[in-house]
Each structure stands twice: as structure tokens, then as C-alpha cells.
């Protein structure tokens, strides 16, 4: 119920259409049921001796045609309203989800994989939409048809309608048994499908490994086994499902036969029934059975949609854990950063902290290098500064104010960050740069490009209007990184954080960028995470991270003197030479 209430909130402006649909449908059903009824009067005219009287036939025939057209119109109207209501509902669902996702913090985002969010916004929404469409249209129609048809049958046939009383529960019971049994198998089937897809996935992406190890036959065997399992389960499941049409057929044939048998006696014996009424009864019988069939289909659809609905609701109910505080501070005074006893873990339930006891005070305008092996907590450490995650313990201040007291937008536009996994978006170079500052002037852009050493290559690829493909696929790794830096500095932030952002840029350019930072952005606090000692050696201070703690802080010379890890890293890189890709780029 909660599920439905939550989803129903997304109907909004389409409520009118969602209500009109069943109204039209109901009217259509009323008109539709009148047709076989009128038909009995029409057929009556054919009976009896003597020449046919055409006038009533024309009248009744005309009425039927007219009714049919009215029903057609109503049906078409309901179909259209239904389309508007259901597509609109789906649109709002997608919109609500997307807007919700926009409010997610990094922590919220980490809970959902991209692929799963996409499935929820596409496949799941369309399942729910299907179900919605069925519910407002067919779920209204079928019971109505059923009821009207039964009523009409009682009116026409009297006790003959008892035949339905026998058939309906029989058929309903059979259908329930069929679907209950089948769904059991289908559940198993879904798991097997996942397994099959997994085998294919691993095989395609690991094809070189498969071929190098000459394991093609083994892979095929593995696949065939799963494929055979699917065959078995699917055949079983489907074998049960296909019983519906013989069951349906059997019920219908039984109905017809019984109606004829009892009908013949009723007409010829007691004379309580007309021959024409007999044919109307058959039409109604078919309507009854068809609507039963439809109802069972809706049942199945709704069951499928239920798990989709649950997945959608997960997205809608996920509460963003980083929100704007009341009376938020609207501007950042300067680029000073103060960590006081900061600890952090990604999951409250996690045993170990990802960061422990961080105490560090950075003056505005300082350049700080951060170095450490993978998993030492470098990225986590810097992501706390623009409040991408909230600290678990301790306080973190930027410009003398706790980060959690700032207006998030104000804080983040002052703290620019170049993420390690950075992304450019499809569009022009300029469009990408404007992400950093919407109203950037041409001078702003030129300056940012200059500092990031991008002017030259941007010129080469066709200037600011040059097209950037999705994820910047048409640029080299180094070009992408430089453009990402330009995007980050265009708003002239108070703090600039670069998370391993020049790894694909060659040494000389890297050095030029660092120098430009110093010359053009002297007041900006710069934090540079790097793998290469050379990239951080010239920083005012260097922080060495290890196991989520600060292992040492100091200048290059100080650390060479008294920090073991720093020295080790330096030696591992320097004694054995450089990196070919980087140097010759």
C-alpha cells in the first residue's frame, strides 16, 4: 500500500486523464454489452413464417452499427486518455527519480551502481507503466464486462446463467494453479539467466585469456550446461503457461455445448428461451471468459511490476545524507583548511576507519602535496573538504567555518575539485568549460586554458566550438586531464584540489601547469595528490598518507630526511628510471 501511495504521487497533472480513462472504459462497456442484447431483437425478426419485415431489421441493424461506433469512439477516447495518463505517469516517475538522484550525496551514490540506476529509470519504469495502463483500463474493463455480461445473461437466460457459476470458479482455479506453478519456475529461471549472462560476459571480456589458455572447449561446455539448464526450466515453466489457452478453449467449448444443450431444451421444452437469445448467451459467455483471462493476465503483470515498483521506490526514498543547513553561511572567507581530529568511515557499521585522527592546518594560498600508495586514504582525505562526504568524527573547517555550516553550493563553488575519475560530457569544449562557471567570460576561458596548458591543443582541434564526444573519447588522456583542470579553475576557486589529475600529462607540461598555478593563482590554496614524487616535490608542504593516517608532513627535503615511506617511494621511482609514456608524450 505504501508502495502504491508513493508511486501515485507521481501521477500529478495526469490525474484527470487517469480518472477519465476508467470513466470512458465503463461507458464503453455499457454500450458494448447492449450490442448482443440488441442483436437478439434483430435476430428475432428472422424468425417466424412469411416474408421478412425489413424495417425492424434496418432499425435494429442501424442501432447496432450506431452503438458500435459509439463504443468505438469511447474505446478510442479511453485508449488515448490512458496513453496520456500512463506515459505522463512514467515521465513523472523518471523525473522524480532523476531529481532525487541530483540530491544524492557521494555516499548515496555509492549505494547504487550506475547500471542499476539506469535499469530503474528505464526497464523498471516501463514495467510499472505497463501495469498502470492495465490497471486503469483493463482492470476496470474486465470486471465490468464480467458483471454486465452475467447480469445480461441472467436477464435473458435466467437459470441458464448458472452455467457460468460452474465454469467461472473452475477456470479461475485452473488459471491460479497454472500461474502459481509457473511463477515458481520463473523465479529459478531468472537466476539461471543471470548466470548465463555472466558466463557470456566473462567470456567476451576475457577472450584473450580464454584463447591464450586454449580453454574454448571448456568455456563452451560451461555455457552449454547453463544453456541446457535454462532449456529445462524454461520448458517446464512455459509448458505450464501454455496450458492457459487449452484451458480457456476447453471452458469456452464446454460453455457453448452446455448452453446449446440446456438451451435446446429450454426453447423446445419449457419455451422459456428464444433461439436468438441463445446466440446472445453465447456472445456473453465468450465475454465472461475473455474477461477472466484478462484478469489473470493483469495479475501476472502486476506481480512482475511489483518488484520493479520496489526498486523505483528505493531510489525515491533514499534520503540524501548531506543537506543544506539552516542559516547556511553563504560565502567562503579564504582558502584556509583546518582538520581537527578528523576520522571518517564510509559505512557507519564498518569496523575500521578509512581515515583516522587527521590533524592538519593549511593556510590560505599554500600548496600542499599528498602522496601515498593506493588505498592509503588520499582521495577520501580530500573529498571531505568540499563536503562530498561528512566527517564521522572531529571537525573540518574551511575559511574558519565548519564545512557543514556552509551553503553547499557556496562551499563547492569555492572549493574546486578535479576528480580522479573525471568525466567530460558530450558537447562543445566551451560547454564543458562553462560547467565550472556558468557566466564565464571569454577572458576567464582564455585564462583557464592558458594555466592548464590547453590553449594550444584546443586551437588544434578546432577551438572552443570543437566537439567533445561522450566521456571525452576523442581526446587523449592528457588532453582530457588538462581540460578538466581548466574546467575546475575557470571560476577562480579559493581552494583547488587535484586528485591525481596529471597522471597522463607529460612531465614538462605538468611542471608548466604547476608553475602557472603559482604565478596566476597565488591566493588559491592548492592540494595536489600525485603518484609521482616529482609532481609534489616542489610543494610548500607534502603530506604522506599511509593506512588512513598522516604518516608525515613536511617539505621534500625534510621528508627525505625523516620519512621512510616517502624515501621509499622516491627511490622506487627514481633509481629505476622514469615512465616512458609520460616522458615522450
Amino acid at each position, binding site marked *: 500500500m505504501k508502495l502504491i501511495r508513493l508511486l501515485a504521487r507521481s501521477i500529478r497533472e495526469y490525474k484527470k486523464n487517469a480518472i477519465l480513462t476508467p470513466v470512458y472504459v465503463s461507458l464503453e462497456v455499457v454500450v458494448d454489452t447492449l450490442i448482443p442484447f440488441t442483436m437478439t431483437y434483430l435476430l428475432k425478426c428472422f424468425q417466424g413464417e412469411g416474408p421478412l419485415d425489413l424495417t425492424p431489421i434496418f432499425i435494429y441493424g442501424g442501432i447496432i452499427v450506431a452503438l458500435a461506433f459509439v*463504443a468505438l469512439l469511447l474505446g478510442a477516447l479511453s485508449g488515448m486518455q490512458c496513453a*496520456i495518463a500512463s*506515459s505522463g505517469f512514467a515521465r513523472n516517475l523518471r523525473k522524480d527519480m532523476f531529481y532525487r538522484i541530483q540530491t544524492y550525496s557521494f555516499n548515496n551514490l555509492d549505494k547504487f551502481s550506475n547500471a542499476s540506476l539506469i535499469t530503474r529509470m528505464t526497464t523498471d519504469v516501463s514495467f510499472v507503466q505497463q501495469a498502470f*495502463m492495465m490497471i486503469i483500463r483493463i482492470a476496470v474493463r474486465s470486471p465490468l464486462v464480467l458483471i454486465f455480461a452475467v447480469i445480461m445473461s441472467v436477464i435473458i437466460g435466467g437459470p441458464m446463467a448458472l452455467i457460468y457459476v460452474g465454469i467461472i470458479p473452475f477456470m479461475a482455479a485452473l488459471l491460479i494453479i497454472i500461474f502459481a506453478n509457473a511463477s515458481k519456475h520463473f523465479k529459478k529461471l531468472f537466476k539461471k539467466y543471470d548466470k548465463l549472462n555472466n558466463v557470456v560476459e566473462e567470456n567476451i571480456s576475457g577472450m584473450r585469456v580464454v584463447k591464450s589458455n586454449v580453454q574454448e572447449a571448456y568455456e563452451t561446455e560451461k555455457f552449454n550446461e547453463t544453456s541446457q539448464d535454462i*532449456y529445462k526450466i524454461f520448458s517446464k515453466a512455459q509448458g505450464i503457461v501454455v496450458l492457459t*489457452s487449452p484451458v480457456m478453449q476447453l471452458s469456452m467449448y464446454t460453455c457453448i*455445448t452446455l448452453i446449446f444443450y440446456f438451451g435446446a431444451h429450454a426453447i423446445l421444452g419449457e419455451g422459456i428461451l428464444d433461439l436468438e437469445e441463445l446466440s446472445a448467451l453465447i456472445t456473453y459467455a465468450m465475454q465472461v471468459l475473455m474477461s477472466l483471462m484478462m484478469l489473470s493476465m493483469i495479475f501476472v503483470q502486476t506481480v512482475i511490476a511489483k518488484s520493479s515498483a520496489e526498486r523505483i521506490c528505493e531510489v525515491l526514498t533514499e534520503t540524501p545524507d548531506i543537506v543544506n543547513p539552516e542559516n547556511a553561511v553563504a560565502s567562503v572567507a579564504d582558502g584556509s583548511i583546518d582538520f581537527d581530529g578528523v576520522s571518517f568511515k564510509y559505512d557507519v557499521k564498518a569496523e575500521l576507519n578509512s581515515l583516522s585522527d587527521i590533524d592538519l592546518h593549511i593556510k590560505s594560498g599554500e600548496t600542499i602535496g599528498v602522496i601515498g600508495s593506493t588505498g592509503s586514504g588520499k582521495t577520501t582525505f580530500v573529498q571531505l573538504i568540499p563536503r562530498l562526504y561528512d566527517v564521522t568524527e572531529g571537525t573540518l573547517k574551511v575559511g574558519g567555518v565548519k564545512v557543514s555550516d556552509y551553503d553547499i553550493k557556496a562551499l563547492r563553488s569555492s572549493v574546486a575539485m578535479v576528480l580522479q575519475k573525471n568525466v567530460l560530457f558530450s558537447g562543445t569544449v566551451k560547454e564543458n568549460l562553462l*560547467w565550472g562557471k556558468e557566466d564565464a567570460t571569454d577572458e576567464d576561458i582564455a585564462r583557464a586554458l592558458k594555466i592548464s596548458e590547453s590553449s594550444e591543443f584546443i586551437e588544434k582541434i578546432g577551438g572552443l566550438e570543437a566537439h567533445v564526444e561522450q566521456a571525452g573519447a576523442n581526446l587523449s588522456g592528457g588532453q582530457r586531464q588538462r581540460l578538466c583542470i581548466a574546467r575546475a579553475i575557470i571560476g577562480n576557486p579559493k581552494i583547488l584540489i587535484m586528485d591525481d589529475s596529471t597522471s597522463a600529462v607529460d612531465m614538462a607540461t605538468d611542471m608548466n601547469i604547476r608553475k602557472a598555478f603559482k604565478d596566476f593563482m597565488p591566493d588559491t590554496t592548492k592540494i595536489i595528490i600525485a603518484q609521482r614524487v616529482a609532481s609534489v616535490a616542489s610543494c610548500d608542504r607534502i603530506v604522506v598518507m599511509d593506512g588512513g593516517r598522516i604518516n608525515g608532513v613536511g617539505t621534500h627535503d625534510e621528508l627525505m630526511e625523516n620519512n621512510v615511506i616517502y624515501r621509499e617511494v622516491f627511490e622506487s621511482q627514481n633509481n629505476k*628510471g*622514469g615512465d616512458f609514456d609520460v616522458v615522450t608524450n
Partner: protein
Amino acid sequence: MSLRTEKLKSKSRPMPMMAKDPMKTLGRLLRYIFVRYWFIFIVVFVCILLSSFASVQASSMISDITSAIDTQLKVRLDGGTVDYSEIMKIILTMIAIFAVGTVALFAYNRLMVKIAQGVLRDIRQDMFGKMQSFPVRYFDTHTFGETMSHFTNDTDALEQLISNSIPQIFNSTMTIIFCLVSMFVMSWQLTLVVLVTVFAMFFAIKGIGGKSARYFSAQQRSYALFDGYIQEMLQGQKVVKVFCYEENNEKAFDKVNDEYCHNLTQAHKYANIFMPVMANLTYVQYGVIAIVGAVMVATGTLQLTENVISGTQQTALGVIVAFLALSRTFTRPINMVSQQFNSIVLALAGAERIFELMDTEPETDNGNVTLVTGKYVGGVFKEGDGDYYWKVPTENGCSYVKTEGDIKLENVNFSYDGVKPILKNVNVYANVGQKVALIGKTGAGKTTISNLINRFYDIDDGVIYYDGIDIKNIRKKDLRKTLGVVLQEVNLFTASVKDNIRYGNPAATDEEVYAAARLAQADDFIRRLPEGYDTIITGNGANLSQGQRQLISIARVAVADPPVMILDEATSSIDTRTEELVQKGMDNLMKGRTVFVIAHRLSTIKNSDCIMVMSEGMIIERGNHEELMAKKGVYYNLNSSK
């Protein structure tokens, strides 16, 4: 049932395309089915015949029984006694026909499941099996999503086609034919009336169908746009957060979402009005038939005949009632098939893609030199336990060459596309047990060399010798068995750690697995995993660190124990400190083997016997570390640039 896992969905999004030649594909598909299941297929066909015959008879029986009752009614009116025997006879015939129809329906439905699922299984296995024989070039030129979608989207569509559409088309065609015959027998004039109304309905279908098809493809297009948009944006969601770009994003989203919604609404509108329009046109048809029938009765143009099967004399009322029922039976299958038209065309496009995949040229292998184990006993080679030997067929019998791992590339030229040369006149000599390093920046052609040695690609010009044998003459499977490859990208399979390690040598004992892991320095961390060597690896080792995954892949090569190893950027995605750990594992493994080390990081290769510096497809410097340093060339500059 459309079955997709969450993961796959995002990766596999081929643009919906129409089949190039749907009829040819349909024909091929039917042949594919018929060849395998011809017996069941024929039984199904007969059952469909019986079932549609029964359903048509159901309608014309209505005429018979109505006529019979009508006749008896007149008898009663005339004061005679009612004779039920005629009516009972018809009812019994009806029961018999219905019974046959239901049994036939049941039978063909069940059998069709067998065929459909069987065919799907065969097609899947066929596809997968064929895919194993594809050259690596195929996987390099097709995206993962593209290949994957053949197993997901295309197969799903095909399933629909085989299990629903094909039997339905058969059934419908049969029903239409039977119906037409029955109607003609009863009254050709009324049949004409039915045909005219059906013709009118056809126009309605065409009108609605045409529009719906247009919106259907418009909807597909805007879906692709929508999907692409959220794909890109969600990918960059963290960047969005960092730049506070949420609002702009919402605006842009609304645009694609609204566009999608618009087309979706239109497509659904037409799909939704289809049903009521058709159903009610059938009623219009009713009215028209009744009126025309009446006129014909009045003018005496309606000729009443006997039913061919039951021999019942028909009355006007009976014929009209029967026609009403028959016209419905006649129109329904036409509606059903036309409603499915879109999905049939889509499914055929899927089938076409599947067949295209199956038609892909497999890797060719003309090698006749095979790998055997055995030893020389008194100057005569005996196959059996022992060392690896190449068995080289000669004019009279064969000779045996010990597999040692001496590799020579002589004047090798290669290009992936036949246009842009990647390797130019490359010569590499790796003697048994030597460590040869290839170094150079990305795109210099280093990895290409490893692709050529294990014959993932074939060289354009020149020769590659393995123990003096041209590798073109060695059976690929055997050649690859003797080459161990460690790639930068580690691919682990969903299986236990143990099974992952013995991947290249499934016959390896547990002891051998442990030994290999120890050699690769992986034993330690593996034993600390929750279930040690029996821990199941999932998601390509998502819960292992990059270094750990690489160690497992090194252990994998250790178990296979090949004479030649290729380390292709094996440590380049690992940071320098972790690299040292992995390096130890690799050093252990390299002992006594010919090793090719491909790297762009100098630390990896310093102790090689021979270092070749590559640039733009050529080897520009060669020698060991000291020699190259003394040369003061490119290599020297690299080392001293710090």
C-alpha cells in the same frame, strides 16, 4: 519474457534497426528449426490444422444447431412432437470436434514449447560455440555491448518470434482459410459482404498501423536519446555534484524526458485505440451482415444448403447466426497478426543479427605441427610422459623437436587495417631462457608483437620462428599452450580462487595450485581470504585489490608452466610500491623461461637481457641496460630525466 540483468542493460543498447531482408531471415530461421525438429514440426503443423479446423467448425456448428432448433421449433408450432435426436446428434458431433480441437491445441502448444526452447538453446549454444572460434580481431572491432546484445536483446526478441508469432501466424493463416471455405460453402454472397467489411477494416489497420509504426520508431529513437543522456549523466554524477550542476542537469533532463514522453504517448495512443477500434468494427460488421442478410432473405437470394459434415438442413436464421460467428473468427486472427507486426519485424532484425554473428569467419588454422609429450628412448622418440616436443610432419613420417622457447621475429611487417603500418621490418631474437623487454610509449607497437607471437593476428610479411619452426605451421591451440600471457587487464572468472588459478591447466592438482600460488607470492593473501583457496571470486574479483588480482593471474600462468611468457604491461596499473611486491612474484616465475616484458615504465625491465626501445613500429635501440645507458640515446635520456 524479456530477461535482462541490470548490468547488461546499460552496456547493450544497439539502436533498433529494421531487418535488411526479413523474408530471407524468416526463411533461414524456419529452415534452422525444421532441420532440427522436423518431426515435431510436422506434428505441430497437423495439430494446428486440427485445432483451427475445430475452432472454425465451432462457428459453423452454431449454424447447424440453430437451424436444427429452428426446424424443431417450427415442428412444435405446427403441433408436432419435438425430436431431440437431431439436436443431440449435432451436440455430440460438436463435443467430438471440440475434444479433438482442445487436445490438438494442447498438444501443439506443448510441442511448440519444446521446439521454441530447443531452438533457442541450440541457437545460443551455436552462437557461443562459434564465438569461441572467432579471431581476436572480431572482439577488437566489436564493442562488448554489441556482442553481448546478441545473447540478450536479440535472443529475447527471437524467443517471442518463435514461441508466439510463428505458431500464431500459422494458426491464423489456417483459420482464415478454413473460415473462408466454410463461409463460401454457406453463402458466397454473404462471404463477399464479409470480405468487403474486412477490406474496410484493413484500411483502418493501415491507417492506425502506419501512424503507430511511425511513432513506434520515433519512440525508439527518443528512448535511445534518453537512455544515452542518463547513461552519460549518471556516469558523471559525481562531477555534477562537485560543480553543483544539478539544476542545469535537471533542465536538460526535462527536455529529453519530455520528448521521450511525447513520442511514447503518441505510440501508445495508436496502440491503445487499435483494440477498441477493431473490436467495435467487428460489431459494425455484425450489423452490416445482419442487414444485408435480411435483404437477401427477403429477396430470396440467400440459398440454403446442407452442412457438408453434419448434413443438417440450414435455416436463414442459422446461416445468419453462423455468419456472425464466422466473421468474428475470420477477423480476429487478422487483427492479432497485424497487431504483432512491429514486434515481428523487430524480432527478425534480431534474428538477422544473430545469423550474421554465426556467419562470421572463424579463425583459420592450417598448422600441422602439434605439441606432444614424450622422450627419446635409445634414439627413438616415444610419445607418453615426458617433456614437451613439437611433432613436425615430414614427407616420410615425422620428426620431433624439443619445445624450448626460442623465438625469432624476422623482418616482420604488420598492419591492423591493411593501411596504417604498425610494425615495420621488426627483428627480435629471444634465446631460450632470455628476458627480452619491449619498451616504448603507448601506440609504439609493443602489444602488437605479443598479439603476433600467439597468433591473435597474422603477420603481413616476414616470419616468426618458434624453436626454428614457422609458427604459421604450428597448430594455434598448441602454440598458445606454450605461451603464458599476463595482461594489464586481469580477467578472473566466477569460480573459486583455486579454479581460477588452474584455469590454464584444469588437470593441475591442489598441490600444484598451492605451489604456483607460493611462487607468485599469492599464497599468503589467498589463505587470509574468508574461505582460502575455495573463496568464490565474483565480479572479476571486485573485492580483491588490483595487486592481488594480478598475483592470481600470475599464479595462473605458473600452473600452466609454459616455456615462454609474455608480460604485457602486467604491472602498469599498479602503484610503484605495490609493484615491488608483484615484481617478486614475477621474478620467481621468470626463472628458466623465455620472457617478453612489455612495459612503458622503466623500473619493470631494467634487469632484462635485452631491451628494445620501440617507436612508431620500429625498434630504435637495442641492448642491455648498461649498453643502452652507455649509448646515451633515447633510453639514457629517459633514465636521467628525473
